[in-house]
């Protein structure tokens, strides 16, 4: 992910990849536009991927990404490697700019048509269970069927609040620690733990609606 894709040629690409994050940010802080382009090519795809999960619509990602990059251009001197990794710092900026774009767009639950609920998958799941003869009925690691659960998960994630979706994505998608997530979303560690706990419960209830009831069997 950190491998830069620089169009200027292999020699430049090798040179750019050798530049450390710290050196790169120092150059950006001194308003070096070439360094900023290297930074953009190194980090925009990763940040865009996170923003797409948060915002769902590419046009909103474009807008948020613009805000993120302008914020980096104006505040690169504030990055302190002693305080944490560059990617964590950048995800924090992306998170807040993404939520700002969502607020401006006035995204609400009413925007999501109710008929986008996926069709029940129970019958298909049962068919597969019969076919494989190898699925234990109450073991969630084995009863779920990859693509069915994947589709249900995508649908369920869309129905979480942006705050819940963000911490779930950061925990399970980005595999960040709770300390990093606290830094990214800007709230205390205990709030992160509680938020992930409740987001998982909500996710479990939504997955149960899609026939994945094993996820709703845990203690509330």
């Amino acid at each position, binding site marked *: 992910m950190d491998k830069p894709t620089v169009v200027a040629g292999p020699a430049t690409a090798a040179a750019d990849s050798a530049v450390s994050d710290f050196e790169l940010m120092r150059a950006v802080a001194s308003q070096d536009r070439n360094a900023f382009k290297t930074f*953009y090519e190194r980090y925009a795809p990763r940040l*865009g*991927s996170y*923003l797409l999960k948060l915002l769902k619509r590419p046009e909103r990602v*474009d807008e948020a990404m613009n805000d993120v990059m302008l914020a980096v251009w104006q505040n690169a001197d504030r990055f302190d490697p002693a305080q944490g990794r560059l990617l964590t710092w950048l995800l924090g900026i992306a998170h807040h700019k993404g939520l700002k774009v969502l607020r401006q767009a006035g995204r609400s639950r009413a925007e999501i048509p109710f008929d986008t609920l996926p069709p029940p998958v129970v019958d298909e799941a049962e068919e597969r269970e019969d076919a494989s003869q190898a699925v234990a009925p109450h073991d969630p*690691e084995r009863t779920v069927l*990859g693509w069915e659960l994947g589709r249900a998960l995508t649908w369920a994630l869309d129905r979480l609040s942006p705050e819940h979706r963000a911490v779930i994505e950061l925990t*399970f998608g980005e595999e960040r620690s709770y300390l990093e997530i606290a830094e990214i979303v800007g709230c205390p560690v205990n709030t992160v733990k*509680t938020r992930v706990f409740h987001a998982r419960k909500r996710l479990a209830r939504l997955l149960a609606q899609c026939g994945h009831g094993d996820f709703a069997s*845990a203690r509330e």
Partner: protein
Amino acid sequence: MTTLSTDVPTIDPHQAIEELLPWYANGALNPAERIAVEQHLERCSACRLELAQCRVLVTQFHDRAEAAWQPPAGHFDRLLADIDRLPPPVSANPPPPLRQRLLGWLRITPSPVRWTLALESLAVAALLLIVAMPLQRTLPDYETLSSDAEPTVAGTRLRTVFAESATIGEIQQLLHSIDAAIVAGPTTLGVYTLVVPGGDRPAEARDRAVAILRAHAQQVRLVEPLEPH
């Protein structure tokens, strides 16, 4: 006999562990937390189920087609154009420093008001000095049970988790045997921080303490030296 009571809600140890399960599943816990979770999982079927669900989520997120965002054509050029339109940095026209602003304000203040303000400031400063001095002299050099300041103890620090079955007497005996003191803990995961005074040979004292504690596996579940600050 006095009984202690508190209005502070106690943290449910089960919930504390349950909240850590997502990070146990994604491998982002520190060793002490990992051990605490594993000990809890041995006796909690509900958490084992929760962990299985977390692991399914880790796998699903890992295996799903990654949402890819590609910068639209000309995005970076438009970004540079936006940068060109940015207002000049605030530091180009910094506001006058506080001292200059105060001096400017004093210059337009009538002389009698200036003298009154100066005398009042002196009186307030003297009053603060009088109030502060006796406090410094009467600061207690002893601790009470309600003291919240942590005593400073020099020595090697050890992160320790005692077995739930260990009695207070056994723990005290162990601490005496290594000349250690508890300076922090327990955390929500039951971790205590001990300090072992090392004297001239801190490494030797530390190794001896660790060896003794590890030899008492019935009373001590985990002991590991903390890195010096």
